[in-house]
Each structure stands twice: as C-alpha cells, then as structure tokens.
C-alpha cells in the first residue's frame, strides 16, 4: 500500500516515536478517532487513553498518552502530549501498584493514569 502518513508522537521533554504509519487511532474528548492517509486537516483535544499506531511495515505501536492534542495536516500527524509512553516502556508492576495506591487514596487522576498505562501495556 502506497498511502501512508508520517506520525510524530511528542512528549513535552522528548520525541517518543516517529515514523510512517497507515492508521492511527486516538481518543479525543468527543470519542475515538481513526486517522488514515488523506484525512482532512484536523486539530483535536486528546483524552488520556491508549493511542494505537499501525505502522506501514505491518507492526503495531501502542502508547499511553495522558492529555494533549492531535493535529493532522499535509499527511503529517502530530500527537502532542505532556506525558506519553510506549507500551513496552511501561512498567506493568509499577502501574499496578500505582493503581492500587490511587484507588486506596481516591486519587481519580492517578487512577486513570495508571489504568491507561495498564490498558496500553495489555493492548500490545
């Protein structure tokens, strides 16, 4: 397949992943959105959630993204997030511990963050 788009997943302090992809699925505030090559220019607000990138060589990259933006124009897609981690960077045990702790303390944001991490890790 010839059609592909360039994806840059950028966190505040580093570039997490960049490369060519055929499909990117992300969660915006108004629901999941899938972007394929040739999509109309788009700028959206992301919810914290897993982002799935189908790379052009057939692989899948999953990342946990906590808040941020998705912007797409000229076949270039940027995912901006304050915090973003690839699924294989996620420390599952630590996230589980965090989840327990957040639940015990009733910290909703921390709970959501840990939950997203775990889901991203499980999805890959």
């Amino acid at each position: 397949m010839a059609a592909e788009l360039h994806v840059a997943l950028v966190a505040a302090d580093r570039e997490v992943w960049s490369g060519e992809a055929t499909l990117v699925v992300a969660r915006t505030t108004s629901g999941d959105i899938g972007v394929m090559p040739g999509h109309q220019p788009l700028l959206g607000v992301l919810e914290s959630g897993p982002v799935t990138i189908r790379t052009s060589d057939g692989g899948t990259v999953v990342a946990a993204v906590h808040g941020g933006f998705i912007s797409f124009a000229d076949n270039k897609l940027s995912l901006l997030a304050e915090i973003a981690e690839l699924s294989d960077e996620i420390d599952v045990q630590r996230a589980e511990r965090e989840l327990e702790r957040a639940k015990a303390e009733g910290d909703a944001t921390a709970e959501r963050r840990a939950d997203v991490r775990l889901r991203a890790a499980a999805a890959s």
Partner: protein
Amino acid sequence: MGAQLRVYKRRIRSVTATKKITKAMEMIAASRVVKAQRKVAASTPYATELTRAVTAVGTGSNTKHPLTTQAETVTRSAVLLLTSDRGLAGAFNSNAIKQAEQLTERLEREGKQVDTYIVGRRGVAHYNFRERKIAEAWTGFTDEPSYADAKKVAAPLIEAIEKNTAEGGVDEIHIVFTEFVSMMTQTALDDRLLPLSLDEVAKEAKPQGEILPLYDFEPSAEDVLDALLPRYVESRVYNALLQSAASKHAATRRAMKSATDNAGELIETLSRLANAARQAEITQEISEIVGGASALADATAGSDR
C-alpha cells in the same frame, strides 16, 4: 626559612587549593551545559508542534479568547523572573534581575501595577533584602527543571490572567529569562507571554508565508483553544526554564574558568615573589658570612700588630 618566604609559601598553597576547586567546578558546569542543551533540544519538537497548532487555531478561526485578546486598559501585569538557586555564575543573576527591574520600571511608568513572580533563590533573596513584595516564588529546581516544575510555575499565572483585574487578576504576563545563544553568549531578555499576539507567533512558526490548511476542530475551535493555550504557556515557561538553566551553567563555567586562570596567574606571581625572597635571604646570609669573616680577619690582623 625567613618569615617572608614562609608567608608566600602558605599563600601559594592556599591559592593552589582554591584553583583545584574552581577547576573542578568548571568541569562540572561544562558537562552540565551539554546536558542542559540536550534538554533544550529535546523539548523543541513539542514546542514547535504546539506553536504550529496555536497558530492554526488562532488564524483559522475567529474565536475570541481571554488569552489572546488585549485588554483595553491594562491595570496590572505580572512579571515572571527566572534566576538560579546558586550563585558563582558571574553576572548571570544580576543581569536577569536588572532586566526585570528595568521592565518593572517601564511598566510602572505606563501606570501599571506590577506583580512579581520569581523562580530561584537568588532573585528571591534580592527582592526580600529590598523588602519588595513577591507575589509567588519557587526554588529548588533551577539546575534541572522538569516539565512538572514548569506546570507548577505556569498554573498561578494562568489562573491570575483568567481572573478579573478587580479581583486581583492580571491583564498581561511578562517573562524575564536568560536566553542561551551560545556557549559564550547568554542574554537576559524580557518577553510578553500573554496576551498572545498571534501575528508574531505566526511569523515565528512560518517565516516563508506558507498557507495553513483549513483545520477541522474537534470538538470545537473554542474548546481546542481553551485546552491549547495553557499548554502553550507551560511549554514556553518550560523552554525559558531550560534555557535559563543552560545559561546558568554556561555562566558558571565561564566564571570558574576565569577564576582558575586568575588563580594560576596569582600562583605565578607569588612564586616569583617567593623566589625573590629566597634569593634575598641567601644573599643576605652570604653577605653576613662574608662581613663576619672579614670583621674577624680585621680583628685578628689588628691584634697581631
């Protein structure tokens, strides 16, 4: 050993010890500059993309937002001053403080009230000593600022600008920081952070006059702008913090290098003086011996006669 010589020897020893310390500090600072520079570079993609996005919303929609519209009469402005926690960095902190004071003076001349926000112990100490009011201050992270620190600093500023001026809010935010131009040049400068002038941002993002695509906003342009602008401010503050940190390390490196050089020079002069003192001592001893011998010879010659 003569007293004079002993004093010189002692001073040489102490200056040598100081030189060792400054040399070590220079080396540490040099490695930290590189690290800080790398962090500035790593944060650039995020800042560029964010600027692009802000430009896109700003120019692609007719949304009015408190963060982009200029108040008709500005009654109060906030000044965020970035200094370092530690000194030994030459004129780094005093330059930044001077810049902030000039800016404050200018704003006050225009009839605006100024709230000062400070990052870094040096700036806080300067203002406290002069018993000036500080709206809020943060210390402890200037050497290696993280994004969370930038968020912490940006939060009250964003809150202040969203509040009404009558209730203690501000109309504009200025930032004073030290720009890292190169290893040798760092300049303290002030910049208006908010309200954003979109034309300037657009100019920065697109110097060649490229046409921006017509974006589809999800969920709506207002919501995107609402979410985008605080992030933009945070990222600008983060960038300023990183540049400030890099500049501070570069300034420390330079200051420590000249301290090391000066110590070397001092050691050289002192050893010259010590050598001269030693020579003088020897000369004196010889002349004493010669004088003593000839006096003895004269005395014996006299008694023979």
